[in-house]
């Protein structure tokens, strides 16, 4: 999982649980060359001075039972909400909590309607439009769930809680293809827009190392977006058979959670890339951004073939280009203050 650290030298750092259940950080070579360092947090100081934000975020991560996109995001959001990444990031963290709540309400409502439509055991009290009569909808939902629960081997009270939990889980994928509900579709759209922007930029440049970098980034984005679209469709299609979905949920909710989480795993790390690019407003900044992005481009998860049937050879060809050297003072001299400020702005613009 990519961790949204604000310390410049820790850009693109990933975290994983080690064999002894402690955390291991996978840090890019600070010289800009190839390769990574795997180390515990205590060794990070040999790389530089982590910001207070990063120290607190790391402490929060150390208490996580599972390392997933959701748990890392929540830890980062809680840290930003304290004000440790600046005022704008604090406001954004508070707004994001409201946005997530909106996504959850939308997903719950959609699942409820889908279930009522499929089961159709309770007639409408009036021919009102869908959703226009909340009391009627609520009554029909309760009756539907009461009818369904024993048929799934569950007590009558199980249904409401199960549907609510399922809605919370589905909220990230947006449930429907219309609108902009769901964090993952919003992130996929941001990646799509960024990829288009990079492609447009390529058209204005003469060929060179940077253009080669940019083309490779576009290729990996295309693969990622195609697979994300497939995984989102797969996740959303589960709601076509709500009874079947609740049956699986009653037996093994983690099985559903894993399928729903796939697109978010696939997009892990891309938000940082989009932000690096979008904050670079001119050619010079974009040339530098491409070098930074090249360090961050995620490796496709090993499970991708199992999830999608897609076998990619991108990893083998990724960035075989001549490495572009970084200035010796970058991330350590006076520019470090600007980079921290920029990274904090990233926290303010995270989805």
């Amino acid at each position, binding site marked *: 999982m990519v961790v949204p650290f604000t310390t410049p030298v820790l850009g693109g750092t990933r975290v994983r649980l080690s064999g002894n259940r402690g955390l291991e950080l996978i840090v890019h070579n600070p010289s800009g060359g190839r390769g990574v360092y795997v180390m515990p947090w205590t060794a990070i100081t040999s790389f530089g*001075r*982590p*910001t*207070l934000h990063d*120290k*607190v975020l790391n402490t929060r991560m150390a208490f996580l039972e599972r390392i997933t996109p959701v748990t890392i995001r929540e830890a980062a959001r809680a840290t930003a909400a*304290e*004000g*440790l990444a*600046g*005022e*704008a990031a*604090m*406001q954004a963290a508070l707004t994001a909590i409201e946005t997530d709540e909106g996504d959850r309400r939308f997903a719950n409502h959609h699942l409820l309607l889908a279930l009522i439509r499929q089961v159709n055991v309770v007639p409408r009290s009036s021919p009102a439009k869908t959703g226009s009569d909340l009391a009627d909808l609520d009554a029909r939902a309760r009756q539907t769930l009461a009818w369904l629960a024993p048929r799934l081997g569950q007590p009558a009270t199980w249904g409401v809680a199960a549907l609510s939990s399922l809605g919370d889980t589905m909220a990230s994928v947006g449930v429907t293809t219309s609108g902009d509900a769901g964090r993952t579709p919003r992130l996929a759209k941001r990646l799509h827009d960024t990829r288009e922007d990079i492609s447009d930029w390529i058209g*204005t440049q003469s060929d*060179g190392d940077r253009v080669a970098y940019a083309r490779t980034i576009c290729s990996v984005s295309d693969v990622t977006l195609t697979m994300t679209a497939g995984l989102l469709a797969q996740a959303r299609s589960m709601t076509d058979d709500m009874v079947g979905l609740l049956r699986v949920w009653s037996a093994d909710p983690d099985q559903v959670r894993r399928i729903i989480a796939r697109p978010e795993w696939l997009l892990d790390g891309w938000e940082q890339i989009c932000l690096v690019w979008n904050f670079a*407003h*001119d*050619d*010079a*900044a974009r*040339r*530098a951004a491409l*070098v*930074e992005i090249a360090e961050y481009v995620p490796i496709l998860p090993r499970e991708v073939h199992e999830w999608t049937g897609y076998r990619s050879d991108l990893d083998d060809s990724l960035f075989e280009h001549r490495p*572009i*050297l*970084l*200035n010796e*003072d*970058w991330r350590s*001299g*006076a*520019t470090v*203050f*600007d980079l921290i*400020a920029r990274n904090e702005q990233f926290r303010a613009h995270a989805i």
Partner: protein
Amino acid sequence: MGNDSSRSGGGDVSDLRPGLLEADDHKIRRILAVVDGAVDPAVNRALLDPLRPRLASLKPVRPLRFARLLFIPIDPLTVPARGWRPGNLTVPRPALAPIAKLVRAGLGDLAQAIDKMIDGRKVDAIQTITKAGEALWPRAAEVLAHAPMPADWAETGLPLTLYASLAASIAAVLRHAAQLRCIAQDEELGALETDNDAVDNIMANIAKEPELGCAMIAQLILLRSPHVARLLGRVAASGRTSEEKAALRKAMDRALEAVLSHMERDTGFVRDIVNGALAEVGGEVRRMTTLLRAIETEAAFAGHLPRLKAIRTKLDEVCQTRFTRGLTEGLVAPLAAGSRPVDGTAQTELEMCARDLRKLETAARKAGGPMTYDGLLLQAAEAVRSAANLSEMRRCRLIEIVSGPEAAESMYHKAIRDT
């Protein structure tokens, strides 16, 4: 300058000058906004010429106009008429208007296309300047290289004999302007090593340029892209004949001499650093210390080493003065004076000021005086610690910037324990 258009509304604009010279920065920016809206360049010049030194430090964001875009590449070399001497590696400001008119007339349809590209933009539109400049500068160089002296050249008050060499030198800079801008921007961002392709492009055919033009190009590299200074030796060696090599060597020496002489003068960089915006001076000092280091480490510049000590001493003094003023005005005074709790907007401004101070301090330490900055930063930390109007988290943020994350962490844990 000798026409009536400098008279405005029945009065001579010179009546306004004494008031203008005493105006504060805010008032000057407001006046500029009015002047930039006026269409008469003569009135603008009459009003603004006495303010040029203030404008150079203030770096106001002015509308991007054709002439301004055209001369962006030579901006660091432009001086007022009274500051110009024959043989200097500078461009006298009165020469700009007739040259801009001449170039514009020679560009044909491209002039309108450029106008369209920059319409409504200001000088902070970096990408627009890059793109419009790439279209304009090489063509402008062609026009300038072949155009006869403008008919209104005599009105500049400059010698008639100056035109040919000045036009050829400006043309030389404009021919390489896009690459010079590329390496200068990389230097400013500080992320990448020198773009060798851009440097190679500058060096291609540089021996064909007039010596004055070569020297101007070298001076621009020293001022804007000091990391590339070590490559100037390559420029000198790129001549095909011994005469060309000698001419290039001479041009490089002239450029370095001009830069060092400017640094040694009483005014020199002092005004830019003392009066410059805090957000800008850190970068300015970084470029200067980089250049000094390049001169110290490059064997070809060894002859200039004895001059550097005095420059470093002066730079150190000026930086300490600017840091102290920035600290007082931007951090200590607002924290001491505030009666209401610091809100989000005020906190963001305080953090920006603290960062700008740290950028200046980090660059200035390379000029000397590290103990002084340690003391000044302690003073900054004390101002933050004793401020009554800061929440604990906002205090931690400011302490992190001025004293480092370790100090902020202790404060953070104490704040958590106390709540």
